[in-house]
């Protein structure tokens, strides 16, 4: 097998590898800025220099040439090489900065050059704390600069598009952003303008950076040049807490990280999953922080004399049971939702079963023409496939309207039918509408009973994407009834750990008075004497996987271990593969 010697250690390899990626995959490090594993390597930052050589071999006999001491003779490449775009070859000898003073010196001097016109405004820069330039300057950079001339000034606060703001002075012209628009999103909206020390990335004159994936350029920018218009100056990175989760704004289920501080989701960034979204996510998914933070329903609401007033949990549970008991079972309509998780739909389905109510129905939420074969889908809901696999009855909007007309009590989970114009407020005259919802909407305004439930940022629950991959969320935000320190699944940021209620940067106000749907259903069922109990998403998923063939072998442990599980969408012929 071909061998390569890196810093004195011999490694065997197969196939074609770029040296930088190979070194990284070994868990070792070479500094770099412009390289990105999903894009081409133009080698223009010159930071990943290493010393590379080859053992000298006699072409005819195939024997190694030896020096006087019997050591193999090495023929070094005449200059240092950028490791990002050089192929690993058999008999290659590589010295990185760890073993070679020349490489160390080259990397240090290169950083000094890169920093010549860099403003070094880290204390006010959004990137500080997660900035490759900052980190690598600490690790490999010079102690100071010998450059005493005034730095070149370039445009600042350039609004490139509706979501991205550029600070050209911070830019080191790695071209990651322009390559992203050329190779990944293929809109070709960015280019490097001008040259020499005056160059910076920009759009064509008079054009806006409207790319639906534009915010990915902010993520891959190795400095603070590209910033998100929304998140700029909102928080320091080290004050936030990062929790892995799933995008719930469309059917693709991009893997994301929720960045919270004091129980507010401040930004959403993509998390790598080679099977789903690679390193990317659409801009729309990042807007979901508004769903988690703003316009939330906190405490149950109940209509009295035509007006919604705040109610108590006990009251709302009693009202819920009274309303169901007071009606003919045939007049009760339970509507599940592709916007709710597998577990929530399952809990509703079980309650309906026990109460002897008609099957649970749902309708998909799609917008044709929205999908783009990349990460946007026609499906606007995260769990349409999950509802189908649970055996919920899918109705089109017309049939649904027909069923609504016949019903006198409608229980709606996390779906806003009046906002979606599936039925109008007048269709509800004389009917009792129970709405389990996360956010206020036109629909909840007309509901007679509104029960606040947790969002994907507050509960652990799973969602099945359009391709049949089941993935789960982890709670990132506390509710009034959950606690980071007691819930071992939740993580703690610095402020969560060390803040107290007496600090003026910590507030209880961001905790929503809501509970997971399954907890409410457990309470309601117990109050009406039914034997139904759900504890948490984890145990419910075990129940689901026992009961439903498509969910066979699915558990939170398996999902965590494999970054989601591909379900078989045709359960009769295949059992699910654990990948």
């Amino acid at each position: 097998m071909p061998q390569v010697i890196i810093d004195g250690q011999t490694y065997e390899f197969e196939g074609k590898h770029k040296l930088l990626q190979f070194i990284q995959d070994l868990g070792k490090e070479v500094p770099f800025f412009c390289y990105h594993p999903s894009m081409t390597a133009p080698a223009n930052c010159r930071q990943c220099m290493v010393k590379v050589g080859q053992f000298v071999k006699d072409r005819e006999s195939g024997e190694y040439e030896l020096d006087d001491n019997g050591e193999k003779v090495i023929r070094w490449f005449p200059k240092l090489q950028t490791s990002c775009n050089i192929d690993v070859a058999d008999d290659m000898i590589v010295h990185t900065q760890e073993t070679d003073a020349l490489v160390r010196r080259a990397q240090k001097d290169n950083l000094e050059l890169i920093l010549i016109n860099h403003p070094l405004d880290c204390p006010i820069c959004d990137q500080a704390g997660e900035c490759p330039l900052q980190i690598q300057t600490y690790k490999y950079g010079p102690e100071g600069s010998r450059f005493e001339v005034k730095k070149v000034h370039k445009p600042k606060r350039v609004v490139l598009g509706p979501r991205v703001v550029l600070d050209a002075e911070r830019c080191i012209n790695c071209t990651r952003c322009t390559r992203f628009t050329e190779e990944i999103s293929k809109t070709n909206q960015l280019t490097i303008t001008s040259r020499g020390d005056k160059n910076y990335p920009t759009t064509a004159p008079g054009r806006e950076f409207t790319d639906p994936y534009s915010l990915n350029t902010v993520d891959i920018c190795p400095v603070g040049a590209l910033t998100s218009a929304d998140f700029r100056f909102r928080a320091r990175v080290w004050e936030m807490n990062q929790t892995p989760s799933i995008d719930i704004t469309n059917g693709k289920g991009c893997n994301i990280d929720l960045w919270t501080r004091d129980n507010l989701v401040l930004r959403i960034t993509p998390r790598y999953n080679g099977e789903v979204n690679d390193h990317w996510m659409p801009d729309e998914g990042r807007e979901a922080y508004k769903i988690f933070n703003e316009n939330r329903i906190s405490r149950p609401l109940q209509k009295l004399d035509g007006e919604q007033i705040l109610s108590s949990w006990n009251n709302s549970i009693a009202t819920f049971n009274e309303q169901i008991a007071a009606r003919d079972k045939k007049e009760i309509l339970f509507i599940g939702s592709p916007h709710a998780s597998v577990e929530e739909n399952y809990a509703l389905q079980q309650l309906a079963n026990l109460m002897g109510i008609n099957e649970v129905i749902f309708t998909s939420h799609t917008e044709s023409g929205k999908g783009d074969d990349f990460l946007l889908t026609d499906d606007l809901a995260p769990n349409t496939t999950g509802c189908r696999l649970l055996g919920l009855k899918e109705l089109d909007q017309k049939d649904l309207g027909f069923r609504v007309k016949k019903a006198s009590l409608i229980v709606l989970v996390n779906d806003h039918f009046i906002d979606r114009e599936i039925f109008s407020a007048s269709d509800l005259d004389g009917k009792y509408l129970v709405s389990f919802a996360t956010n206020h909407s036109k629909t909840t305004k007309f509901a007679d009973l509104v029960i606040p439930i947790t969002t994907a940022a507050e509960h652990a629950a799973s969602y099945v994407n359009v391709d049949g991959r089941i993935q789960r969320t982890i709670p990132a935000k506390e509710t009034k009834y959950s606690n980071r320190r007691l819930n071992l699944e939740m993580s703690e940021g610095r402020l969560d750990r060390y803040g107290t209620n007496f600090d003026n940067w910590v507030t209880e106000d961001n905790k929503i008075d809501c509970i997971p749907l399954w907890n409410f259903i457990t309470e309601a069922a117990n109050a009406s004497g039914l034997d139904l109990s759900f504890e948490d998403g984890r145990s419910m998923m075990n129940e689901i996987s026992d009961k439903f063939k498509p969910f066979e072998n699915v558990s939170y442990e398996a999902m965590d271990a494999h970054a989601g599980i591909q379900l078989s969408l045709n359960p009769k012929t295949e059992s699910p593969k654990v990948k």
Partner: protein
Amino acid sequence: MTYEFTTEDLKEIEKIKSRYPEVKPATLPVLWIAQKRFGHVDPDVQKLVAATLELPEAHVHGVASFYTQYYKEKKGKYVLDVCTCLSCQLCGGYDMLHYLEEKLEIKAGETSDDGLFTLNQVECLGACGYAPMLQITNDKYVNNLTHEKIDKLVDSLKKGEEPGYEKMEMPLRKNN
């Protein structure tokens, strides 16, 4: 202002495109055609080039803004690039520049009111042996400048007569 290529230009562009396996390499020569036609490649012309070649506007802008020889704004009919790099500087490059500034009543980087002349101060044009010198609109060199030579040049340019290419002899080294 909207710009359009003539049919001859489009024929020429087709010919250029057929020289390369892809369209992208045609960007440079087509920008030259545009600059010859319109005298500059301002953002509107860049858009025209992008539309003609079916390339992204950003790419054409990036290429056009990289090269100083493409004029990104309207210039005078004659662009005079006066070299003030080392050799010309020593032989009186700045003197020539300032003489032109006074004569044309514009500063370096400006265009005269009649739209005839743009004066630029530039770095080495590779004619150090015939310093001081200037270049007319990315093309002809006028070497060994003197005040009289400049007077004559400006007069003939005003009449619309461009000087021809000047043949320069290299002084032979004396081997003794």
